[in-house]
């Protein structure tokens, strides 16, 4: 007996559109088409499957009043005790340090300005990514090089009040620099004369005092010669069929501006930076991705929806907010909720001056007041008309 045609499958399945999420419809259609090629699917079977899929989805829906926030917080927090505390680990790229485990999760939740180990994964456009030389060249171009990096030694000559740098020849060459180039960039930045003597550079501060000399010395040492600010180390790795550039340090805006870079795939682990450069939606996705990555690496199973909710809460205001007193908890509408979290007295006293009113809409406020909380069965308010007083047997 012949089964239904693939067109029938398509049209029948697509009737679910709007009712079920697209991802499920796509999966259902794909699987049915695949099975249909091997064996015949009867009309009744197809209908049964679609009916069941609809039923399964309806059964799996969240119920109104469900405390999804608390569940999400617990689901992310509970496995925290099982995570490692080891900060640095070598994941994937053996050459670079990566923050992992509990410290990384805390870092994400904290929405720190800069993570403790900022890291970029730079993908290159086809013609650069396929060639080892071009990838290397690019890597060299973005790596931040300071005077200190190319110096063999530096000394402050206190007698002549002079700062002397002895440059390292091979390091200079590797970075495509010459002593004159270094000298001229020092000259341009500090507006002082630099004497070049082979690989020795001599310079005097504008005013000949010892303190001025020391100031100059420290400033010259960290003077960037070329590269991108923040990118301190670069590693080129072959991955699948292309070369990928990994960097320690992150500067998304400037890296994305480079013509060699594949902007769609290049990533950084600095969430705040993503928010600033690419916008809040990107930051939200990046929070989810980073959290999932960290949890997965630890072998902990946490549903994606929990991370989504946490990320959405962190980003609803339009900027990345921390989970804690300087972010979400500090900006709560309720005085009592804020006071019961941290910095109790300050919140109470300020509320008095401002004449705030706590509307008791949240959870903790109602716990404090000793009332049912507006969650789950407590979120239902029942109005009942008493038709008849008393009962009958």
């Amino acid at each position: 007996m012949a089964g239904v045609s693939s067109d029938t499958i398509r049209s029948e399945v697509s009737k679910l559109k709007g009712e079920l999420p697209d991802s499920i419809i796509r999966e259902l259609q794909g699987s049915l088409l695949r099975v249909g090629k091997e064996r015949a699917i009867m009309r009744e079977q197809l209908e049964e499957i679609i009916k069941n899929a609809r039923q399964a989805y309806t059964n799996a829906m969240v119920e109104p009043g469900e405390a999804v926030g608390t569940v999400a917080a617990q689901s992310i927090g509970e496995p925290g005790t099982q995570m490692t505390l080891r900060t640095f680990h070598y994941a994937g790229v053996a050459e670079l340090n990566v923050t992992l485990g509990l410290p990384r999760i805390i870092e994400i939740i904290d929405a720190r300005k800069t993570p403790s180990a900022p890291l970029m994964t730079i993908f290159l456009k086809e013609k650069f990514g396929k060639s080892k030389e071009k990838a290397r060249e690019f890597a060299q171009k973005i790596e931040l090089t300071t005077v200190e990096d190319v110096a063999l030694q530096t000394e402050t000559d206190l007698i002549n009040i002079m700062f002397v740098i002895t440059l390292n020849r091979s390091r200079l060459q590797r970075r495509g620099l010459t002593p004159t180039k270094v000298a001229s960039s020092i000259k341009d930045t500090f507006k002082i004369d630099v004497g070049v003597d082979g690989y020795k550079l001599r310079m005097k501060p504008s005013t000949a005092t010892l303190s001025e000399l020391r100031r100059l010395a420290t400033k010259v040492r960290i003077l960037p010669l070329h590269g991108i600010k923040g990118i301190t180390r670069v590693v080129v790795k072959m991955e699948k069929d292309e070369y990928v550039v990994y960097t320690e340090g992150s500067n998304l805006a400037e890296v994305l501006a480079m013509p060699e870079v594949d902007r769609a795939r290049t990533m950084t682990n600095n969430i705040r930076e993503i928010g600033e450069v690419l916008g809040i939606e990107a930051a939200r996705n990046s929070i989810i991705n980073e959290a999932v990555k960290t949890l997965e690496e630890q072998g902990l199973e946490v549903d994606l929806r929990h991370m989504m909710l946490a990320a959405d809460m962190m980003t609803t205001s339009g900027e990345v907010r921390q989970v804690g007193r300087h972010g979400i908890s500090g900006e709560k509408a309720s005085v009592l909720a804020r006071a019961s979290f941290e910095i109790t007295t300050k919140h109470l006293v300020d509320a008095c001056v401002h004449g705030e009113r706590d509307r008791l809409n949240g959870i903790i406020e109602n716990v404090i007041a000793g009332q049912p909380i507006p969650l789950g069965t407590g979120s239902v308010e029942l109005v009942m008309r008493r038709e008849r007083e008393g009962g009958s047997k």
Partner: protein
Amino acid sequence: MRIPKVIDGIDFGVMSPEDIRKMSVTKVIAADTYDEDGYPIERGLMDSRLGVVDPGLRCRTCGARAGECPGHFGHVELARQVIHVGYIDTVHDCLRATCRNKNCGRILLSTQKLEEFRKQLEDIKRNGGKWWEVSDQIVRSAATVEKCPHCGEKQLRIKFEKPTTFMEGKNRLTSSDVRERLENIKDDDALLLGIDLKVARPEWMILTVLPVPPVTVRPSITLESGVRSEDDLTHKLVDIIRINQRLAENIEAGAPHLIVEDLWELLQYHVTTYFDNGVSGIPPARHRSGRVLRTLAQRLRGKEGRFRGNLSGKRVDFSARTVVSPDPNISINEIGFPEHIAQILTIPVRVTEYNVEELRNLVRRGTDIYPGANNVISPEGKRYDLRYADREEIANKLEPGFIIERHLKDGDIVIFNRQPSLHRMSIMAHEVRVLPGRTFRLNLCVCPPYNADFDGDEMNVHAPQSEEAQAEARILMRVQEQILSPRFGGPIIGGIQDHITGAYMLTRKGTLLTREQTQQLLAYVGVFPELPKPVVREKGTEYWTGKQIFSMLLPKGLSTTFKAKVCENCARCKEEDCEIDAYVVIRDGQLLNGVIDARSYKALDRCEILDRIVKDYGTTAAREFLDRVTRLSIAAAVMFGFTTSIDDEDIPPEAKERISEIMDKARERVNKLIEVYNAGELEPLPGRSLRETLEMKIMEVLAESRDSAGTIAEKHLGLDNHAVIMARTGARGSMLNLTQMAACVGQQSVRGERLSRGYRRRTLPHYKPDDLGANARGFVSSSYKSGLGPLEFFFHAMGGREGLVDTAVRTAQSGYMQRRLINALQDLRVEYDGTVRDDRGAIVQFTYGEDGVDPARSDKGKAVNVEKLIERIIGGK
């Protein structure tokens, strides 16, 4: 019925001096508490108009006795004004931002600018936002203005000195000066400074009158010796009143300016520490004994403060706590309950004409005979304590409308909890089952959600009182409803340890059981089905396979296929022909192929069978399955016998030799690497120093040899070995644990590196300085079984210590993280329109999780398991 009052909102505001006087029942002038006879001094701090705490006395304000009188405020008229520390920042802002000219007092910004700000502020206010955030900007820009744009007065810089002093240029501003300035602030400007005139005036932040809290807020305690000990607040108030009096007298007597100033400052100090004894800049006030006083702010703050300690978390009645112990024979829904506790915890039952007789009997039995009752409440609300009352008389009086508080009995619902309550499965509802003994008993399957073991763990029980609460607990919180964890959509309640080994031994190939054995097992489970056809008949005896018996517990119609935990992940799966029977096939409730192990029903594992039963047959079926299958497994383990001892890790001498060869070779390879390094010929990895490269290479070599030693040991540890059964089926332990016992423990590490600290340039004085060899840096080549050498033992302890420290630090860190997460997310809930909103009603997600699916009801995160659905309806391959 009493209709409960509902608090709709709470307003915050500053009290005006008039408010304080109006609410006061008496002026307090005496700095003393009690007279010689122990009676409260009139107009003293313990004046009986302020309320009573001692039994027997009556409050002179409301006439109520101790415990009923809520207490009443008094007040102290301060001889000089004093700044309230809590408002010091706001006062500072007001001073900085306003003109110093008495006749002006405006904010130091042009009218136009102020109007702009006002507009901005009112916009926010209209939308219910935090309008006072605008005032921060206003203050910031006004503070730097040097000339008043309104009157042209030149402004001086106001310097704030912690905690309560203001300097203007070189002159010090007294509290009266400050108050004068604040009084001068125009009404229109106050709002711009963040002060809501409806509830506060700027000058109210300077105190002229101090409220004295009721005695009930600061009760004194009588020690055993009869000595009275006053509360810290009372001590502080005594100080304030005393200094206040002295100050008043001195002013009256026209004392020199300097003395008055000093006393004024002292008064300021006392009032400041009375409000907050932890402000920076001044030494905290101390008790005579040197203990730091716990004043108002300290009472509210912190973990044990009023907010976190008493308001967010409250002590409750109807609760019990004792040690927990296991009972494999009760259902996962049940809790074994000591009779003694059942006699103390009660549930109120309303007398109806249907249950009068039953309840009369309970009343007659009283408090001491189990099942009895403890209290009877008459319809008028009179309470009879059955310990003392004439029970027979009360029992005869019972009629509909009475409420009796009866002992807990089998089938009652109670709430069971183990701290730390990290997720919602830490608190679940169980059905009472009264058992002899003094501990709470729980089924072993519920250990994972509570994270309980029986090494002395204690747990708490709460008995919900109202029918509503009991119904909610039963429907929403019962253990069987919590089998699936919302964290990942898989079972968190399931078999553990022996449940897995037992099931494995029963279902593995070659398990044949006689009729007697079969009956024995099923009797233990408590099911008596008709036996299927025996598969083997030999010399007149019939034999059944373990799989057949296991199948009797599976629901009809269950079909699934999966790979067991013991599966070795061969490159090409032999499916039904697998030597170790790792390919599990279940068709229509019959286990046709494969062994049952962790994959099938272990908690927190993939749980293929249990998972399907919960999702396709419901939680009741799942509970029944779990109760039965664990009993069967344990019965099987008892029948076949299961034990493990140190000779489970025995390996033949040849293998030991091979292993020690590998170890020697590893050491040699490490030495070679070090030589290469010393010769400067080591090629560094990109971005790493030579030393780091060396370490990484050495670690790699040692890890590799540890693994190959393990592999050799594993070859001699087959699936007939009980320790191996536990590891391979996923019941307990891992192959790594076993190889560490049998072959080699491996590298010890601290912070992910080989051990390096201790002595200068070496770990221990037994080695030469800078020895980088395997042994010198904590490689343990012995096995646990053969025993560790003294040096190895020490290194092992180093690694072990890090583990302990790590655990301690981690619990603290993750605990705080969870507290923050909960606090940030707790107000979110799903609304009837499917959106997720916070307590303001602001939408956070338009559809929960982008598809509206509850992870606890999902199939591993997916709403519909398409594969299984198609397999079920069209049939397997």
